[in-house]
């Protein structure tokens, strides 16, 4: 069953065309990888999907879980189960990570018709999942993303994904800046989470991550379009040959 259906979307930023007709269908239970050179519009696509201001399409349609995604505000999209792990997670000085997580989780639980967790119940659940991501309790007392190392930020993003139980998770370069150990932790988190009732889009620049999170489909985004789609073998070819041969002007 389709969870996300992108139909021929176009977008320009400051009159510069970034996406020039991208289409993509993702079904529940699938993992899609989107690869492409720097600046090819991968993050832009993730912002369009998550509803960031200033990323309005000039044309095209997007369906998410049988709804017109473009009709929903950013927080409604999240409420409906769309999650973005940020390439550059944002710092919120003074906002304790634990409180932030609880606020977010309780909003999502309300939408799912589950009852709010009280402080104790929540802390227990958050700590359980956090320890699976090798996140220490002490870190959850700190302000959101403030003073976190690159790896901590990425692990914290995945922790949020686990807690929010989205239907569609978009991971934007979650592998960048991670050493092998951290990469394994993050991948484990994603692999444990993915199932037949959800879907994952992994955006990455490198093939490395795809050894751990094995995609069903790989798409190459370049020159504003999906140049090529295939199975996991496509990522291996990219690793060997680079984007040359796929991208016109690389």
């Amino acid at each position, binding site marked *: 069953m389709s969870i996300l259906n992108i139909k021929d979307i176009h977008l320009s930023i400051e009159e510069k065309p970034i996406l020039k007709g991208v289409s993509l269908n993702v079904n529940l239970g699938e993992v899609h990888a989107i690869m492409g050179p720097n600046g090819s519009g991968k993050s832009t696509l993730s912002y369009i999907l*998550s*509803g*960031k*201001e200033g990323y309005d399409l000039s044309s095209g349609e997007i369906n998410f879980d049988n709804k017109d995604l473009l009709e929903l*505000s*950013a*927080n409604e*999209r*999240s*409420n409906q189960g769309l*999650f*973005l792990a*940020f390439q550059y*997670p*944002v*710092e*919120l*000085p*003074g*906002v304790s990570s634990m*409180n*932030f997580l609880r*606020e*977010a989780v309780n*909003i*999502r639980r309300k*939408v799912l018709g589950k009852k709010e967790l009280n402080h104790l119940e929540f802390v227990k659940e958050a700590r359980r999942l956090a320890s699976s991501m090798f996140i220490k309790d002490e870190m959850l007392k700190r*302000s959101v993303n403030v003073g976190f190392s690159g790896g901590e930020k990425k692990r914290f993003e995945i922790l*949020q994904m686990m807690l*929010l139980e989205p239907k569609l998770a978009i991971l934007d370069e979650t592998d960048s800046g991670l050493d092998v150990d951290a990469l394994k932790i993050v991948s484990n988190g994603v692999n444990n989470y993915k199932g037949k009732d959800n879907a994952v889009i992994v955006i990455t620049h490198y093939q490395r991550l795809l050894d751990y999170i094995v995609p069903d489909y790989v798409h190459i985004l370049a020159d504003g379009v999906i140049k090529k789609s295939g199975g996991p073998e496509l990522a291996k070819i990219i690793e060997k040959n680079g984007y040359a041969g796929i991208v016109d002007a690389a």
Partner: protein
Amino acid sequence: MVASKETISVVEQTTSKYKYGFSTKVDVEKAPKGLNEDIIKFISGKKNEPKWLLEWRLNAYKQWLNMKEPSWAKVNYPEIDFQDIHYYAAPKVKKKLKSLDEVDPELLKTYEKLGIPLSEQKMLSGVAVDAVFDSVSVATTFREKLSKEGVIFCPISEAVQSHPELVKKYLGSVVPVTDNYYSALNSAVFTDGSFVFIPKNVKCPMELSTYFRINEQNTGQFERTLIIVEDAGYVSYLEGCTAPQRDENQLHAAVVELVALEDASIKYSTVQNWYPGDENGKGGIYNFVTKRGKCLGDRSKISWTQVETGSSVTWKYPSCVLMGNNSVGEFYSVAITNNFQQADTGTKMIHIGKGTKSTIISKGISAGKSQNTYRGQVQIQKTAKNARNFTQCDSLLIGDKCSAHTIPYINQNISNAKVEHEATTSKISEEQLFYCKQRGLDDETATSLIVNGFCKEVMKELPMEFAVEAQKLIGISLEGSVG
């Protein structure tokens, strides 16, 4: 004001922006509008005051007549007609009240709406409340428990009768009558307020709290608070304020004086939520308040914490005069302005004693078309060897029609003192808002979360129950400022 469970639930359910905007029908006795010697005599007579106090008032009035309203603050408001104000309004009482049962039930209902049921339940939260309704102190709870410790906590009008020597000694000793235009006015016409006396070596066993409310139309509120803590004593004092929603502006000109003797410590917290006017700038309270503490004794400490969300115009500089050697002054402030609110607030730290230390943390948040100014003075006098000050002023802007200003004055008269000043101005970034929204938070929840994070250093200084209330208030006062 204490955030009892019911207060919090009222805040959560509130749909109107200003939840305290009701007024109460009680039988009221008012002085005619206007200010002259007769009115002052009337007020003094109503309170059965001794002659010295009447003379003190009349002298203040004479001085006031020769003074000018200050104009240096960064606030604009139409000229106030001081003859168009009632200087005395009191709920009518038949006789002196002995217990809560005798308080007008309508009044008690008001307090309940405000979230401060003046009942013995308060015992549980360990807070004693003195409630000032318009001009008169209505009921003071837990006085007996306090008096066992030798703590005096009562309306100042009563202290004038029962402890005249203390009042006479300290009244005006921290804020001289002629300190400024509003302190002179207050000295002439003050109607009530709280009096606290903590004897030597006593740590006050509960937090003391006063709740101020302006109810009557065209009434000014001029309360006067005096807190004296003797050697090695301690008190934590909370002050909350609200007023009904009215189209006219109302004047609030209070004077608060604190005196800390040797090793004494006073913690004074305010959550000020006077009616701020509507979203077009109509109505609201003019809040012109003089608050000052004197660290008279060595090693004494005075700490001001304020969360200012209300009033249409705020002019307020809680200050510390650090006379005792090694005495400590602190000022923690959150000032939020939205719509057309104007706030000019800050502090003065006057270092006189050796080794005196002061800390100033100010967080200003402006939204809408509001103006938010921090004005602070750090004065290191010649005698203040090794004095130290640290000041941090952070401003946060929401939207691009508001403004924030930081005006520090530093007078350092000796070289071996250390004065540090840091200031930042930031905006809530689109990135921060988007990050929160991507996690499901709506604009208002996101803003409130970010702003509360910005204020954290100050909020953690507030007593626990107060902090919860203040956090909600911040959310409410910023409603509609983004999105």
